[in-house]
C-alpha cells in the first residue's frame, strides 16, 4: 500500500495504491495525519488503484472524514471501482461521503 500526495492549486489530491485493510489502515491514517494537522481545507482521495477495502479501511476513511470536518475541511472520494463502490452502497457510507466518478469532477465540484 502506498499514498502519494499531489498538491494542486488550492487542494490536495491523494492517490492510494493497493489494499486498505487491517494491516495497511494505520499507515493510511498516518499519511493523512500531517495533512489534517495542517488543516488542509480540501482533499480529493483518488481510489483508482485501490483493489480492496475491508471494514478497517472503511473505518479509516470515516475517521479521516471526521477529523477533516472538525476544522471545517472537505474531502471527496473519486475513481472507485464498482466493487469498492458497492461496499459504500451496502454500508450506506455513500450518504456520508461526497463521491465523484473521476478526479476532474471531484476537483471541479469543490
Amino acid at each position, binding site marked *: 500500500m502506498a499514498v502519494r500526495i499531489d498538491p494542486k492549486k488550492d487542494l490536495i489530491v491523494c492517490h492510494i495504491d493497493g489494499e486498505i*485493510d*487491517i*494491516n495497511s489502515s494505520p499507515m493510511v491514517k498516518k499519511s493523512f495525519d500531517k495533512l489534517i494537522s495542517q488543516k488542509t481545507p480540501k482533499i480529493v482521495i483518488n481510489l483508482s488503484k485501490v483493489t*480492496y477495502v*475491508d*471494514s*478497517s479501511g*472503511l*473505518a479509516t476513511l*470515516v*475517521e479521516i472524514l*471526521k477529523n477533516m470536518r472538525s476544522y471545517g475541511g472537505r474531502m471527496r472520494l473519486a475513481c472507485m471501482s464498482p*466493487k469498492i463502490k458497492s*461496499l459504500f452502497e*451496502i*454500508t*450506506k*457510507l455513500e*450518504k*456520508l461521503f461526497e463521491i465523484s466518478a473521476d478526479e476532474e469532477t471531484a476537483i471541479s465540484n469543490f
Partner: protein
Amino acid sequence: MKKKDIIFQSDSGCIRESSFRILKDLEHYGIGEKTAFEIKLCVEEAVRNAIIHGNKSDPKRQVRLGYWVDGGILNIEIEDEGAGFNHESVKDPTKEENLLRNSGRGDYLIKKLMDKAEYNTKGNKLSMVKKIN
C-alpha cells in the same frame, strides 16, 4: 471439494492467509472476480472478528477455519476459542446515527454479501454459505 480444516494461531498474519487458502482451492471452479472479492472480504472479516473479539488477540488461542464445496455451494465455518459473543447486540451500522461509528460494518457486510451467515448459540462459531456457480 472435501472438507478442509485449518487451525491458525490468533495472529493478524493469518487473516490474509485464510482467504488466500480458500481462493486458491476454488481456482478450478472458475468463480468470478466479484464473487472472489466477496469471499475474500467475508472470510477476512470473520477471521479478524474471531481473533480480536473472540480470542481477544490471545496468541495461545486458536481459530479453526473449515470449508468445503457441495453442489456449487461454498460452506465456510470459522470458530474461535473465546467465551462467545452476542452478535444480535451489534448496532446496525447503516442507521443514520451510527454512520460515523467505527464498529459493526464487518459483521454487516458478511450478512449482506454471503447467501447465509449464522452464529451458533454460544456465539463463537460462524457458518457461512455462498453459491459459487
